[in-house]
């Protein structure tokens, strides 16, 4: 036995007792800590545990489709995947950004921007960082589920539009809701939600957009779904049936070709729009997903303004089409006898200034109209006759009738951002320019120049309404709408008869400006217009250098009274007269309308109408098949404009 512990049995009992108390105290303090967490703050931690394990994943409701008047699909959806970033833990997000940037091919700056833009939203809401995930992206997310726990895939349906901008301006396009839209939606919209931005998509967004569903799932600590709690099914958006006739639309698209301009075809009896084209056009499929700020800027700043729906937004001088308004004013007012005749030597002298008739510049034939009455003046579009009428009537009467016939007013078509055009008046000049009306201005206005501007849809409504006896149905895009608003302007039977007779003559009488448009068996009537882009004065200032070609108009309809179809066509800066550049488009559409009505197979018609063109007619108008690439391919394959037969 060693020496060092022998008989050493003095134990420090007091200090041992102290140690016991310390032990009891220590356990007591620990229990207090548990009491605080488990009893006092239990609810708070309970919620945090719940937030940990439960994740809400939206199920996107598909948008309603758009059908044409025969039920063919114009706008559909296709399945796609979006990549979601879960932002519950900002530090975690920050940590994985480089890996995400690498894996998904999104620049770090872009990701930072997106996070910055959504910083005000609740953290538990995931954001869409890549709207159109490729299969490689999906593989990346799937294989990094455990080491990048902040990514999630979201199955969505994307808009699919017909290719090559078919009906693009009317259908419009969708995009992610802007911050303003989200704020104004009373919580209905969330970031990343897709809403209509333009056209019908925007107009009928509430109908087309469904209500998203929600899936609540349990996830483990590495973000893997382990169980499923509840599912609230999405309510799909409702489909809408447009009044658009896909066959006519096809003809209209092709016939206008790639020339800048617009086409509006409507049924004046109901106001239903049968076709609507605007050129140039973007492909809305490009922004069905997400468009970069740069591309967007480019589109917006493109001098050709491809985003503008010229059919309802182009406000341009109507040119000679306006002579129908002047003629209506003359006939209704009775101050100038109907038998009134002018002599047109190619120009007229008013207030000591020479106003030329367009015929003065004619490339061939006589440079004067000679003696001209109202019928001949409309037929041949004699400017001197209408200069005289304008001067005699004055701006007050002209603007009264222009106003009554709808110039300067929106037609009320169910598309956003419609423009109203302008019907100048003394009051307007005083209000805007703070000056007196120059009497000479009425002379220009009478032939649709000067300050008067109209939109294509306005002219289609105006001409169609006059031919329908002064009943102006509000143009609209949906089929079978009940109680279409209409405006009536009491025109005498004599006025209507005289004007429709003259417009019939424009196409069907010798010397009419639309003489080449004659269609066998169809009472195609109409009025051409060739409008200068800028006034004579301005042109003199900038003449050197720039060439300003005229805008060509033709508004045609059939039959000659109470028409079934009225088509307004604008071809911008074509350098040709309205009857030459715009007229054939009207003729193609009216022809196609009657062929369809009479059961003549499409295609042959267009071939006949294009007898002088080299295009193989049978292939020109393929039967339009909804959402098939080949439908539009046939458009692309036949870039020939509808003016093959003009010369």
């Amino acid at each position, binding site marked *: 036995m060693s020496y060092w512990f022998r008989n*050493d049995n003095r134990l420090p009992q007091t200090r*041992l007792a102290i140690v016991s108390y310390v*032990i009891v105290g220590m356990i007591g303090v*620990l229990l207090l800590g548990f009491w605080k967490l488990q009893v006092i703050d239990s609810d708070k931690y309970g919620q945090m545990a719940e937030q940990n394990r439960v994740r809400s994943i939206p199920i996107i409701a598909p948008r309603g489709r758009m059908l044409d008047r025969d039920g063919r699909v114009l706008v559909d959806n296709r399945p796609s995947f979006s990549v979601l970033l879960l932002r519950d833990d900002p530090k975690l997000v920050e940590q994985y950004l480089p890996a995400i940037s690498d894996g998904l091919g999104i620049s770090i700056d872009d990701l930072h921007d997106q996070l910055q833009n959504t910083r005000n939203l609740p953290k538990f809401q995931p954001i869409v960082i890549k709207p159109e995930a490729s299969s490689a992206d999906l593989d990346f997310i799937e294989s990094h589920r455990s080491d990048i726990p902040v990514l999630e895939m979201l199955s969505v349906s994307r808009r699919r539009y017909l290719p090559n901008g078919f009906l693009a301006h009317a259908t419009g396009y969708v995009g992610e809701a802007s911050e303003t839209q989200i704020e104004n939606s009373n919580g209905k919209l969330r970031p990343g939600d897709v809403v209509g931005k333009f056209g019908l998509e925007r107009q009928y967004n509430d109908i087309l957009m469904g209500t998203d569903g929600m899936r609540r799932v349990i996830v*483990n600590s590495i973000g893997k779904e382990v169980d499923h709690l509840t599912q609230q099914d999405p309510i799909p958006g409702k489909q809408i049936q447009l009044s658009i006739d896909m066959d006519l639309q096809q003809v209209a698209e092709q016939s206008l070709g790639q020339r800048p301009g617009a086409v509006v075809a409507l049924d004046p009896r109901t106001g239903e729009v049968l076709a609507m084209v605007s050129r140039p056009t973007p492909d809305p499929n490009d922004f069905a997903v997400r468009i970069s700020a740069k591309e967007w800027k480019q589109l917006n700043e493109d001098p050709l303004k491809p985003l503008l729906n010229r059919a309802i937004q182009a406000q341009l001088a109507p040119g000679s089409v306006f002579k129908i308004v002047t003629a209506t004013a003359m006939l209704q007012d009775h101050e100038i006898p109907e038998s009134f005749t002018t002599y047109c030597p190619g120009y007229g002298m008013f207030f000591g200034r020479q106003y030329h008739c367009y015929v003065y510049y004619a490339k061939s034939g006589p440079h004067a109209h000679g003696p001209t009455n109202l019928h001949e003046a409309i037929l041949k579009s004699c400017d001197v006759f209408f200069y005289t009428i304008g001067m005699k009537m004055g701006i007050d009467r002209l603007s009264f009738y222009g106003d009554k016939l709808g110039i300067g007013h929106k037609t009320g078509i169910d598309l956003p951002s419609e423009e109203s055009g302008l019907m100048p008046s003394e009051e307007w000049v005083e209000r805007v320019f703070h000056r007196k009306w120059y009497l000479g201005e009425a002379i220009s206005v009478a032939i649709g120049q000067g300050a008067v501007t109209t939109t294509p849809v306005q002219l289609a409504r105006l001409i169609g309404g006059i031919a329908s006896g002064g009943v102006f149905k509000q143009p609209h895009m949906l089929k079978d709408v009940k109680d279409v608003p209409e405006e009536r302007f009491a025109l005498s039977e004599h006025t209507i008869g005289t004007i429709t007779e003259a417009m019939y003559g424009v196409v069907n009488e010798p010397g009419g400006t639309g003489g080449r448009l004659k269609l066998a068996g169809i009472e195609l009537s109409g009025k051409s217009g060739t409008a200068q882009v800028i006034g004579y004065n301005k042109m003199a200032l900038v003449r050197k250098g720039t060439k300003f070609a005229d805008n060509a108009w033709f508004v045609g309809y059939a039959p000659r009274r109470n028409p079934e179809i009225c088509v307004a066509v604008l071809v911008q800066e074509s350098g040709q007269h309205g009857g030459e550049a715009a007229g054939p488009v009207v003729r193609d559409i009216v022809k196609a309308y009657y062929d369809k009505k009479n059961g003549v197979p499409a295609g042959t018609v267009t071939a006949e109408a294009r007898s002088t063109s080299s295009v193989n007619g049978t292939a020109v108008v393929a039967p339009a098949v909804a959402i098939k690439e080949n439908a539009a391919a046939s458009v692309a394959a036949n870039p020939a404009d509808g003016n093959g037969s003009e010369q």
Partner: protein
Amino acid sequence: MKDAAQGSRDYDWWLIAILMAICALGVLEIYSATHASGGLEGMHYKQIRWLVFGFAIMFALSRLDYHLILDQAPLLYVICLIALGSVLVLGSSRFGARRWLHLAGQDFQVSELAKLIIIIVLARFFAEVRSDELDLRDVLKAGMLVGVPLVLILKQPDLGTALVLVPMMAVGAFLAGLKWIHAGIFTLAGVLLVGAVFYPPVSKHLLKPYQRERITSFLHPEEDAKGSGYQLLQSKIAVGSGGFWGKGFGNGSQNQLGYIPVRYSDFIMAAWAEEQGFKGVLLALGLYMALLLRLVQNAQRAKDRAGMFLVMGVAAALGFHVLVNVAMVIGAMPVTGIPLPLMSYGGSATLFVFMAIGLVMNVRLRRFVN
């Protein structure tokens, strides 16, 4: 000398009962935490194997007279230093630290053995102090005895285990008759040191980067994403969401979905608290209190000072483990990597506890000897 141990009647059956109860809680919670997650199933069986092995070693150690062990203290001390040294040179590295020595097909954490040896060495040292009061020279000597292995363990680095040596030394010195004035001075120094550790301008000279990070994330858990601040937060959420009654066995979402870090080992108390609630915590901490008090009682009835120091060294080590681990689970202390004795899964740590309790039983069995 002949073995003077008495029959089985003299074993501390209460202590064994408490021990087994705590082990049972541990096995239950290890089962709950691991049975449903891939790759970890069957862990509770492994733990049971360690426990059986531990009980065997405990009884074996209790038969060997502790005076014989104390006799060999200098030799054990040298072995301890050699082992700690060799682990730094030869040890296998895991999670950036050299702590394991590969022996007989098993990886052993040498510092666990070191703890046991330091308990023995300190008991021998303090028992040799003849007076009732401990003078400063003795304190310094004890400090050096502990200091060398402490620095070696810090080198691994294993701050948690190194820190355990401090209360063993403190309790020993206190019971050996440390003057109150000295006790006060050392306490003050300790407080200052802890303060320095938490004060960045000073701590950057004292601590390794990962240790400073843990301190930072403890003080500012929200600044630490997936690191130890996140771990502490998840642990607190588990404990808090358990409430008074708990979510039920196998029903803790924090536990079952893996939000609690190493839920079967260092954070097993969080898993237990989530599923069993405050009532379960009361039971578990009650058992630990009973264990510690039972150890003190054994010390009070020891035959001699050496036995008392042995028992109290064990009590100090276990008490410190419980305090630091449980305080970490409720977010009151930084993450140190100290397991909860007998409940946390682990071979070396479990064996250490059983060997230590074996020493305690040894002392008890010999309390009536001449």
